[in-house]
Structure formats: C-alpha cells, structure tokens
C-alpha cells in the first residue's frame, strides 16, 4: 500500500514538468522530422520528375529554356520517335522474349531442386546444396569467355538462346537458396503425413510442397525478374546484332543512334524504362521490398 502511493507520487511529480515543456518540444521535433522527410523525398523524386518532364520537351526547349522549366506542350512525339526510330519496340520485345522463358525455367527447375535438397532425405545433399550456394559469389565475368566460345561454336549467337540459358543458370543459386529456406520453414510432419497416406515423392512435391510455398515462389520470381530485366553484362556480351539487343543494351547505345544527342527521344526512352518498373513496383511494393532484401545475397 505504502509503496503504491510512493510510486504514484513519483510518477505524477516527474510527469508534471514534462507536460509543461513537452508539447513545444514535440512540435519542434515534428517540424524537424517533416523538413527532413521533405528533403529526403525531394532528393529521391526530383531526378525522376525532371526526367519525365524532359521527355515532353522539344530539342529547342532543351537548348534554349531553363532546365527547370516545364515543357511547353504535352505531346507524345518523343515517345513515338523513340519507339520507331530508336527501335525501342524491338528492344523491349527482345527483353520480353529473353526474360520470361528464363524466369519460368529458373523457377520450375529451382523449386524442384530446392525440394529435393531440403525436404528429401539422401546422402550428399549438403554437398550439392553448398555447390549451388557457391554460385552466388562467383562473378559472372568468370563464366563469360567459356560460354562465349560455346555459343559461337554451336551457332547460338545469332539467337536469344544464349541469354535464356545463361540467365536460367545464373538465377538458379539464389532461387535454390531462397526456396530451400522457405521449405525449411514448413513443418516436416506435413510431408511425412502425405507420404504415410501413400503419396509418392513427386506427388507430394506437386500437390503439397509447391502449393504450400506458392506465395514465396511468387516473391522469388519477382526478385529474379528485376535481376534479369535490369541485366547489362550478359546481354551486352551475347547479343552481337542490333536486332537482338535487349532494352538495357539498346538504351546504352541510344544516344549514339541519333548522332548528336536528341534529348527528347532519349528522355522518353529512359522514362519508358523507368515507368515500366515503377508500375510493377507500385502494385507489388511490399513483396518487392521483402523479396529483394531477403534475396540480396547476390549483390
């Protein structure tokens, strides 16, 4: 009883002075936080806003108006020029044709392998798992030259196959690693019960394992999509012909195509590349953030 009163008095006595000076300090803190947040968001967003505004400006506006000026009109001419004269349509098509098959292959092969390595029981699985993980650290430069030699010898260089094959193989270590981690989180009893009920291993994988981590698979696929779609090195090495270039390689060579820098179409081309990713990101931002931070081992 007496201790109760004691703590009661100390609380009120210490709370009283705090209450008198609290609100002002809190407001000051809030204003500071608001200013810091605004500065941060301007740093992040301004370059992108400036980019998109630029995609609407004419060459004349670029050379004569202030860089901070708004575009005089909002026509899509620059986008049309980028699409047709800049071959952007072809580049995007090539990217789609190279990225989605490799994405599907990486996921199917990787998830199956992760199941065999994490859920199934056999000697030597840790060695194989380690072999896959070692691939995360190997710089792509280490495999470029042998692959280039093989692709030239087999005549694959005139197609998009080198990209599909290389992306799939490079994506496997991270996919196996991440999916195996998800399988580790599933209670073993579920798989054992399925086995007891008479399901074979393949059936257990297809009807139990795969659906159980469906969401995880989607997240991993999203991460791999960003890695492959944004790749420059592999695409630069294995696409010798202009009509096979992916969007990133095409963009890299974009300014050169017009001779003197055509600012409008260049800005439009960059904007298209950015806006596409922005759309995916805005819809799926929670998953992208979670997936990328979980799968960041690839660096």
């Amino acid at each position, binding site marked *: 009883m007496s201790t109760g009163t004691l703590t009661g008095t100390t609380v009120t006595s210490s709370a009283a002075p705090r209450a008198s000076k609290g609100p002002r300090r809190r407001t000051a803190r809030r204003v500071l936080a608001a200013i810091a947040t605004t500065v941060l968001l301007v740093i992040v967003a301004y370059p992108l806003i400036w980019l998109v505004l630029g995609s609407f400006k004419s060459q004349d506006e670029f050379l004569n108006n202030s860089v901070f000026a708004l575009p005089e009109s909002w026509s899509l001419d620059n986008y049309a020029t980028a699409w047709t004269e800049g071959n952007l349509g072809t580049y995007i098509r090539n990217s789609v044709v190279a990225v989605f098959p490799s994405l599907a292959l990486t996921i199917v092969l990787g998830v199956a392998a992760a199941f065999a390595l994490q859920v199934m029981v056999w000697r030597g699985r840790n060695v194989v798992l380690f072999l896959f993980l070692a691939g995360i650290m190997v710089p792509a430069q280490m495999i470029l030259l042998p692959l280039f030699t093989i692709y030239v010898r087999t005549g694959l260089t005139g197609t998009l196959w080198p990209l599909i094959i290389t992306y799939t193989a490079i994506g496997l270590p991270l996919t196996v690693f991440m999916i195996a981690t998800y399988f580790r989180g599933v209670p073993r009893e579920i798989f054992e019960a399925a086995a007891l009920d008479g399901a074979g291993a393949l059936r257990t994988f297809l009807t139990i394992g795969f659906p159980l981590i469906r969401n995880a698979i989607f997240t991993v696929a999203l991460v791999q999509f960003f890695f492959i779609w944004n790749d420059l090195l592999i695409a630069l090495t294995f696409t010798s012909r202009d009509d096979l270039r992916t969007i*990133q390689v095409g963009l890299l060579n974009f300014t050169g195509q017009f001779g003197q820098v055509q600012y409008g179409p260049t800005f439009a081309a960059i904007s298209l590349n*950015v806006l596409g990713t922005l759309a995916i990101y805005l819809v799926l931002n929670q998953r992208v953030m979670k997936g990328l931070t979980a799968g960041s081992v690839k660096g």
Partner: protein
Amino acid sequence: MNRVLGDRRAIVVLLGPALVLYSLVMLVPVVWSFGYTAFEGNAISGFHFVGLDNFRELVSDPKAHEALWFTVRFALVLTVVQVGAGYALALFYVFVLRRRSGLVRTLVFFPVVIPTVAVALLFQQLFEVAPRTGPVNQLLELVGLSPVDWFSAGGTSFVVLLLMETWRSMGFYAVLLYAGLIDIPEEMIESARLDGASWLALVRHIVVPLSLPVLLASLVFSINGTLKVFDSVVALTSGGPGSTTTPLTLYMFQTSFAYGQYGYGSTIALLLSVLCLLVTLVIFRSARRDATEA
C-alpha cells in the same frame, strides 16, 4: 515414409535438370576459365600455351593496377557511404517517423528497382555541363559557384558515381537495416532512456550492438556488389576519362572482347573472384569472432 522421401528416382527427376544445367553453364565454365589463364589467344584466332605469362603480365601491367586500385577504392568508399546512408535512414524511420514511415520507405526504395542503365543515363543529364547546363550545375551557378565539368576528370567522375550509387541503393540498405532495428525490444531502449542515456550513447551502446548481425550482412552484400560493379560504370562514364574509372570487371571485358585476349581476361576474372571470396571470408570470420565475444 523415409522410403518415399528418399526415393532415388524422384530425386533424380527433381534435382537432375537444375544440377545438369547449373553444372554445364556455371561450374564447368569456372574450371574452363581457370584453364584459359594458361593460354593466349581467343576462340577465333586459336590458343597457344603460355604457362604463367598471364599472371606475370597481371603483376606488371600498370592498367591492371589502376583497375584493381579503382575497384578496391570504389568498393570501400561506396560501402561506407551506402551502408552509412542506409543506416542513418533506418534510424530515422525507427526513431523519428516510427509507425508513419511506411510510405517514405516505399518511395525511397523505388530507385533500387530502376534499371541501372536508366539511372546512369539520367545522372549523365543531371550533371551535364555542355552543350547544355544540367540542373546540378545550374544549382551551383545559382549559389554563386562555377559549374563543374564532372566527367572530364577521374576524381569528379568518381564523385558522381558515388552519388548515383548512393541514391540508387540507400533505400535498399535502409529497409534491410530497418528490419534489423525493429527487432530490438522497445523496453530496452525505453529503460535506457529513463536511465538518462543520451541519444548518442543509446545508439552506440544499444542500437548498434543489437543490430550488428544485419549490419554485417549489409557490409557483405555491399562489398560483394561493389567489387562487381559494371553496369553503372559502363553506362555513366564507360570507364573514362581515359581509364580513370575502369574497374576490374570492365577491364576484363575490354581485354577479352575489344582486344581478344581471352587468357589475360580470364586471369583478371580470376583475380576478381579471389578478391570477392577473400572479402567475404574476412567479414564472416570477424563476424563469428564478434558473436563469440558477445
């Protein structure tokens, strides 16, 4: 039950395709590339055996030294800057914005997913000086400074590279470190605060030690990623002016594909791989020592 989950045929069916593809496209080429280091020539002109000549060349090649030095400098400075910026942001999210940080986190993260080539071309325009003055130089003029020709010297190009990479990646490290920070029990911080700990003491003695594992993970990611830097350099400066911003990755690419020296290119790639491996081992080892001391 163990018979089912140990079914050899099922293991072969599930693991086989991935293992075969991975071995053929990653493992075999790594060994093959290692073999290339003893040869000179390329796929078109043919190869001849030169023994250790490529390694001797690597030791005496001033351009290789320059590339190695750039790579190491870039990796160290950028790691400190981007993880530092990410940590500052994460602390800002946790202690200042608290529950309201969701939208800010989402927006600051966005540059992480933008293709590097697009970011690099954007930054080229932002820092442009001629034929047109870009926003950055306009701002410099506005505050009474003279505009800088950023891409005309190695030092200033390095600065733009750093700024760009930090802009691109700080949101990523912020989210990663934020995840580590919110795991710290609130009572711990609250009780330290009641004991009269200053903000600085709080960060130094409680927040940093408790977020050390995720901080170390960030360092490993960052160093590994920055040692392999390629896209941003190629798209922003293409290694120039001269070869002042050429990392090992780009130097390897140039020797192999521009000069057709596969053997020497592979030797540079090997140096890069060893570098990545060493750094990872060193950080993991120091992390383990820290864990046992704690």
